[in-house]
């Protein structure tokens, strides 16, 4: 059994919360007390159906306004997999939440209201999914019940969306179209009897068959040292272990490695996970590594395989998603957190702003406002060890931290 994180994107009233509620209901993931609460509230509001969006809209403000305003995480499982859905809002002003939700997801669902078709918001949702290089995207064309389950409508939307696809940067992204009705339950978990013209899988069936190769790219191993473990006890007097998480590939005992930034060479002696030694540490495992040589390694250093070095540089260009109400400006200073490494950075140049609706770029931009996406060049006060985002999602991404109030004010994807 694996865990699959899914991001969702849709505009207001596209029925995203209803879709998630429907998934929970049809997979019998709603407990009786939660279901009772939904029934009670739906009745109080005078609905003649169950408002499944009540299952996910958590905050008081949201229930009052009937909208989702922050990323919520929803959990359910089937016999095959465990799922985490990041329910991210689709309003124009909440691009940052969508980027956030997508950053931790391996698959995503874009919702389109069948009555409205592809709208400006859809472009944006697709752009972000593509920018974040999510490998598997489902385009769920919802509210099919309100267009008489029309194949023609479905095909028209599919054709419009395919036009967008030709403009995308990440061409290998897999896209699957599914006509659904979240309210009525068509093609969400169970296949629909109302659309005999559609012979594909239901949404859940699609997610169930996703394999590791469908959601992860094979990269090269990167091991940022998080913490140095020195027990100084009698049994482990000289023990010096480097704790961290393996990204992008595997590391094995005996591997020839290089420690960055010192470029000192060594070999992996042991790989510990708790009190057991292993021959290999797979990607995303949190292990402790010891090296053959007694060299000086500290937090923020990176252990990589010899002959497989990342770029080591004091400047880089990245696509930045700006998330703060105060503008990013040329010359502005921020902390770049790249993985666990923090360095001081200065905005050298805003190359161009990218309109996330695929309407082109703006080369005249001198500052970035909240939810703007732009290509920005940074200069750093010391080198970092990075890969291009397209080759390494973890080692090619970073966040920007405001030096005054410490808030996370932006995210970047290195080009």
């Amino acid at each position, binding site marked *: 059994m694996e865990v699959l994180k899914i991001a969702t994107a849709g505009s207001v009233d596209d029925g995203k919360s209803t879709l998630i509620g429907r998934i929970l209901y049809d997979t019998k993931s709603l407990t009786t007390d939660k279901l009772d609460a939904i029934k009670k509230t739906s009745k109080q509001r005078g609905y003649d159906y169950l408002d499944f969006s009540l299952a996910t809209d958590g905050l008081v403000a949201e229930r009052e306004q009937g909208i989702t*305003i922050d990323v919520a995480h929803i959990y359910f499982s089937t016999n095959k997999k465990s799922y985490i859905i990041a329910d991210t809002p689709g309003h124009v002003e909440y691009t940052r939440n969508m980027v956030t939700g997508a950053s931790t997801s391996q698959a995503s669902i874009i919702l389109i209201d069948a009555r409205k078709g592809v709208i400006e918001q859809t472009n944006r949702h697709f752009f972000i999914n593509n920018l974040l290089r999510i490998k598997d995207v489902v385009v769920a064309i919802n509210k099919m019940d309100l267009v008489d389950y029309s194949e023609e409508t479905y095909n028209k939307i599919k054709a419009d969306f395919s036009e967008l696809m030709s403009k995308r940067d990440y061409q290998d992204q897999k896209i699957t179209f599914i006509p659904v009705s979240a309210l009525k339950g068509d093609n969400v978990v169970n296949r629909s009897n109302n659309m005999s013209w559609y012979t594909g899988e239901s949404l859940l069936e699609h997610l169930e068959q996703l394999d590791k190769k469908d959601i992860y790219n094979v990269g090269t191993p990167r091991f940022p040292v998080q913490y140095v473990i020195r027990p100084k006890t009698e049994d482990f007097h000289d023990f010096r272990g480097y704790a961290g998480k393996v990204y992008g590939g595997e590391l094995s005992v005996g591997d020839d490695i290089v420690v960055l930034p010192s470029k000192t060479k060594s070999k992996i002696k042991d790989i510990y996970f708790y009190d057991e030694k292993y021959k290999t540490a797979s990607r995303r*495992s949190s292990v402790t590594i010891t090296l053959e040589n007694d060299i000086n390694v500290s937090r923020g250093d990176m252990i990589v395989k010899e002959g497989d070095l990342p770029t080591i540089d004091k400047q880089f260009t990245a696509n930045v998603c700006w998330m703060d109400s105060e503008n990013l400006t040329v010359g502005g200073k921020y902390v770049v957190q790249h993985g*666990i490494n923090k360095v001081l950075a200065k905005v050298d140049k805003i190359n161009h702003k990218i309109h996330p609706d695929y309407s082109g770029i703006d080369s005249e931009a001198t500052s970035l406002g909240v939810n703007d996406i732009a290509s920005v060049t940074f200069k750093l006060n010391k080198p970092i060890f990075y890969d291009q985002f397209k080759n390494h999602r973890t080692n090619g991404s970073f966040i920007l931290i405001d030096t005054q109030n410490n808030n996370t004010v932006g995210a970047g994807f290195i080009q």
Partner: protein
Amino acid sequence: MMNKDTSHINSLENEAIYIMREVAAQFEKPVLLFSGGKDSITLVRLAVKAFYPAKVPFPLMHIDTGHNFPETIEFRDRLVEELGLELIVRNVQDSIDEGKVKEESGRYASRNMLQTTTLLDAIEEFKFDACIGGARRDEEKARAKERIFSVRDDFGQWDEKNQRPELFDMLNGEIEHGQNVRVFPISNWTELDVWSYIEEENIEIPSIYFAHKRKVFLRDGMIWSADDEVVYRDAHEEVLEEMVRFRTVGDMSCTAAVLSEASTISKVVEEIRDSTISERGARIDDKRSEAAMEKRKQQGYF
């Protein structure tokens, strides 16, 4: 050959260990909030694993309501001793005696809310900058929006509308003096995940989690522990003896039991898998209003 990322539980474990290490690296004075419940016991296990063979580099702190199940306290003391951990205890009773909080009265009196004051005072006393807790996003709707590193202001308050975005694995623990961060390493675990982990790791937990005979009474469709010193009971509320177990272990005055025959961990896991009631469905404090948890969190509750 290690293959840690194929299993769902292992990937959650890897994530939690990563978070534990970030706490130790990014903060000067972290503490692990320990309630004696299964979630905090799981946290202790993850902390031990994260830093092996070194000792856990932060203490545990228990905010004691004085209304605990005695089994939990015995268990706590034994665990701390066996693992050689440092334990700090601060008592809600002291906050009451000092006049900082007022004991609730009546049928639904509970010390659960009062914990907040004692906790915030202890954070200030020890100058803790990070408090690790066992909250999970699947527990409750407002918690579903909680970050892994959740910044609290000088008053311990949660500003849910202005949370730092968390991208990829990157955790931003930068704070100003006086602020602190609540850290939730098992955010992404479900109740079933925790139980499965306890089973897989063979982790010892207090006996009240297993089916046992207990004197109880019924109120509002829930099973209350009949402990007259702690739980207010009306004369007409009849005491019965039933086989029960607890799904969460909070203050005795706000934790309801469930009827159960599950006397072993594997039977508990099986029961949870088939359960149709959510875990917090047995938390009396959440029933106060639909927005009960969110309100408590804004005030600094864990």
